[in-house]
Structure formats: structure tokens, C-alpha cells
């Protein structure tokens, strides 16, 4: 799931200064689950902006809506005409949503309300953790399912760096060293041998280093 978080209010207020009519658009996808851009957060944003504007003695007309997903054309289609009425859309989706809106509504200013951060898992209500970097070359079969790319500060492929102390990461001691975790897990699974396998030098092309990625499946195309 994509994890995102609300931008600080001053940044948002800054973005929308001068905007008279605003559509705040939420998304019921990942950002709803990570409580950054669902219905509830849209409501909060509406009130926060109204209050912020009131404080400045300005007025703003705000409409709000929440789409099932902002990353699918079928959900954006119905709004196509309506969005023209607005000076701007404040998207509360992840960056994908913002991009996609911008592409779909060429004449409308689209602003991001969130900072999109990572692919993560819900640890509990209100706590998320990065688990995948979307590198395009999965090695999880070798590492007991724990990703050294996403979860090692240095993206190391062949064991921990010299800074791993007592199973903690050198970069952030609050984070466990993923290589320690991988070691413990392989041992438990009687796969310690895996540690001995030397991983080849990583090809970073699929990770986006080769430019924006695109995937097509012929069998599915219309």
C-alpha cells in the first residue's frame, strides 16, 4: 500500500492563496487506509482551510468529493466537466492521483495536499512501515522474505555493513538491521546456507533509474 501524509498547513495555505473556488478531492484507495486522504481527512482539510482563510479575513468557496480511486480513468471521467468550475483541485490522493488528475484535466490546476512517502504495511492503526522499494528485481526468495533494498539504509545486497551493532542499524538505531533479521530468519528456517550465496551486482534499471517505468500486457489491452 502507498503511504502518504498530510503536508503542513502553512504549505497548503500558501499553495491555495488566491484561489477562490477549490475542490478538495479525496481518494478511497491507499490514502484512505493510511488515514491521509479519505473522507475523514477531506472533512478535516475543509475545516482547516476554512479556518485558515477565515483567520486571514479571506473567503474561499470549497467543494469536496471523494473518489474510489484517483488512479483509474473510469473514476475520473464523471468529474471531467465539473472540474472546470474550479480554480484548483486539492488532491488528497498519493502522487499518482495528483499526476493522473493533472493529465486527465488539462485545464485545471491540481495541487497536492499530501506528501507521498513509501510502500508500506499497516503495523497498527496509526503506524506504517516501509516494506518495499518497488525496485523491480525481487530477491526476497533469498532473504527469507525480508527486503534488503527497502529496509537497509544502504540498500546492501550481501549482508550488513560494518555499522550493524547489536542488531541495530547504524543510520537509525531505532531501526533493526534488516540483515540481522534476515540472518535470524534464515537460521530459523534452516536456510542459513543462503547467506553464503553471493548476490550479483544489482541492475538498477528496473527500479526507475532507466526512466519512468511503464508496463503493458497485450493480453489485457482493449
Amino acid at each position, binding site marked *: 500500500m502507498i503511504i502518504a501524509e498530510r503536508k*503542513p*498547513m*502553512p504549505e497548503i*495555505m*500558501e499553495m491555495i*492563496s488566491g484561489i477562490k473556488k477549490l475542490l478538495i478531492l479525496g481518494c478511497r484507495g491507499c490514502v484512505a487506509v493510511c488515514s491521509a486522504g479519505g473522507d*475523514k481527512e477531506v*472533512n*478535516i482539510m*475543509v*475545516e*482547516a482551510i*476554512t*479556518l*485558515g482563510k*477565515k*483567520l*486571514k*479575513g*479571506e473567503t474561499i468557496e470549497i467543494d469536496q468529493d471523494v473518489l474510489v480511486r484517483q488512479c483509474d480513468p473510469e473514476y475520473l471521467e464523471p468529474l471531467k466537466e465539473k472540474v472546470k468550475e474550479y480554480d484548483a483541485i486539492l488532491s488528497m490522493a498519493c502522487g499518482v492521483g495528483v499526476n493522473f488528475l493533472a493529465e486527465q484535466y488539462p485545464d485545471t490546476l491540481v495541487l497536492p495536499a499530501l506528501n507521498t512517502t513509501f510502500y508500506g504495511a499497516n503495523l497498527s492503526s496509526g503506524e506504517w512501515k516501509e516494506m518495499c522499494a518497488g525496485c523491480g528485481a525481487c530477491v526476497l526468495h533469498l532473504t527469507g522474505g525480508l527486503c534488503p533494498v527497502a529496509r537497509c539504509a544502504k540498500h546492501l545486497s550481501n549482508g550488513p555493513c560494518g555499522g550493524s551493532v547489536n542488531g541495530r542499524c547504524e543510520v537509525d538505531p531505532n531501526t533493526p538491521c534488516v540483515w540481522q533479521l534476515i540472518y535470524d530468519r534464515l537460521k530459523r528456517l534452516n536456510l542459513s546456507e543462503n547467506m553464503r550465496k553471493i548476490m550479483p551486482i544489482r541492475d538498477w534499471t528496473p527500479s526507475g533509474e532507466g526512466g519512468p517505468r511503464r508496463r503493458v500486457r497485450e493480453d489485457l489491452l482493449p
Partner: protein
Amino acid sequence: MSDRPGKVIGFCCNYTTQVTEEPLKEAGILPESVEFKRLSCTGKLEVSSLLAAFSRHGADAVFVAGCPEEECHNFSGSRRASKRVKYTKQILSELGIEPERIEMFFVPRQETEPVVKAAKEMLSRLEKLGPIIKKDSNNKEGNDSGKAA
């Protein structure tokens, strides 16, 4: 306008107090500018409702009165409410509003006196803070700075 300390909205849980404010106002215990809103549980409170009290309902200060943390009728309702109050404080700060304008009070159940005390505490905070929208001149300033930015 400038004389009034400002409006206080209190969100009270059903179990905290079912009091209606008319007799309190009639008895001169609370000024007209205090308003109670009753909820089935403060756990029901949304951050957006707390913000709306300021943005739409003209509150200059807001308080939430819920059951003592360990005695909440719905176990964790008032604890949730206090977290939401904290988050609201953060948003207020981000918007440049004094976070003291909103507060959570844990009060013994079914007692009105502590709720009245909470309202009075907010009123006394307003004595210092003044209304949330400063006088006209300030408004203009705000406007100008907005434009300038």
C-alpha cells in the same frame, strides 16, 4: 464586540452531563456565549467537528468534557477524544492559532460542576487570548500579509 471574551463551545458526553445550558445561564453561572453540544460519547468526536466549531460555529475556544479515562462508559471513548484534541491542537498551531484554545477535560461522570469549571477555564483563557479573529485592523493586516505572501 471587543468586550466579549468570545464564544466557548463545549462538547460533552451524554454520560458526563446531560445538563442543558439555559438554567446555568439564567442562574448567571455561565454567560450567554457558552454553548454545550451533547454527544453520545466523546469518542464519537471527529477532528473535523472540533475544527468546524472554530471555522463555522464561531467558537473562540472549544473544550471537550469526557469521562475519566479509566471510567469511560465506552471504555476508550474519552481517551480517543483526548488524542483527537491533541491532533486538533497541532492543526491549530500549523494555522497559527494558539493551541490553548482547545482543551480536553476528564470530568467525573454525571456531574455538572466540573463541566462548568471547564467552561470557565476556557473563558478565562479567552480573557488573555481574545477572540480568534482579531479586531478589524488585525484582519486587514492578515489580509495584506496573505496577499504579500
